[in-house]
């Protein structure tokens, strides 16, 4: 059936190739970034190893750092006060450098649910929580969550009771935001490590709520 010049002899269609990164052309800003980095290295302003190490640091941060802070705040009322005052200072107590930009925690209560967005671009507490998910950067999330957050949360599987006030925080300026979620019922006997395990990235963005282990 085939007139392929490249016949494996088994008559299966050729396996589709996953395109390599280099198969799409660089955008203007990608070219500009690479050019500036090369120039800075060439002029000994920064070293190639510093650039590599910074990538490594950013890739090594993960939501687990934020989850530890949340679990401690659930377990220690005094720590919670300090966390609500300054996330960066609270993180430093764990030996974690939460970065140069001040981070604020927005506390969920039984009456208020918070959700975070950056409508302008993709501002996110990345030194604490790692890189943001792709959907956080999408135009759909950024434009819809300020307009119809209940519908957006429902698409993430989160149904908020009608009497809960919803507050959307748009991080347009010199602060980054994370949500301090409400500790779920049925977690009274849990230690900090077990509590941290139920605090996910999406809980700290506010599109979902932590669930007690074993529920659903």
């Amino acid at each position: 059936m085939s007139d392929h010049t490249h016949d494996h002899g088994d008559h299966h269609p050729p396996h589709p190739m996953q395109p390599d990164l280099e198969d799409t052309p660089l955008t203007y800003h990608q070219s500009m970034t690479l050019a500036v980095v090369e120039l800075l290295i060439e002029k000994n302003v920064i070293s190639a190893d510093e650039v590599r190490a910074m990538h490594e640091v950013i890739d090594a941060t993960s939501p687990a750092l934020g989850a530890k802070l949340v679990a401690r705040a659930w377990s220690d009322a005094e720590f919670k006060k300090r966390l609500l005052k300054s996330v960066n200072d609270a993180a430093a107590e764990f030996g974690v450098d939460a970065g140069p930009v001040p981070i604020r925690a927005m506390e969920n209560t039984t009456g208020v649910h918070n959700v975070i967005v950056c409508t302008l671009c993709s501002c996110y507490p990345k030194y604490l929580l790692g890189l943001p998910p792709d959907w956080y950067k999408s135009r759909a999330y950024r434009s819809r969550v300020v307009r119809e957050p209940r519908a957006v949360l429902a698409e993430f599987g989160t149904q908020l009771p009608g009497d809960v006030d919803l507050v959307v925080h748009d991080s347009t300026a010199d602060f980054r935001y994370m949500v301090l979620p409400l500790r779920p019922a049925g977690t009274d006997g849990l230690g900090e490590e077990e509590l941290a395990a139920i605090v996910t990235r999406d809980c700290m963005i506010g599109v979902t709520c932590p669930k007690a282990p074993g529920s659903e």
Partner: protein
Amino acid sequence: MSQPQFQTSERVRVRQWEPPGHIRTPSFIRGHTGIVQQIAGQFRNPEELAYGRKDARLLTLYRVAFAHDDLWPESPPGEQHAVIVDIYENWLEPAERKS
């Protein structure tokens, strides 16, 4: 350092303004009225910092709350929420003044 021009709980309007260049005030709140939730400190104007002006002037930053009904009057009922946006003083004017 300058004294904040607006106080907590004061009603403010976001300027209906389309300056060229790097802008940190989203368009969906321009021309809308909100309430100052908090005076969040003073920061160098990021719209100047973006062009390498390291001595950009210090501006008071406000956290301003907007009501859903005001921002999106045409949207269906059931979506009652507030949006809190961080806005620099140069983008705000008293709510009473005409924009």
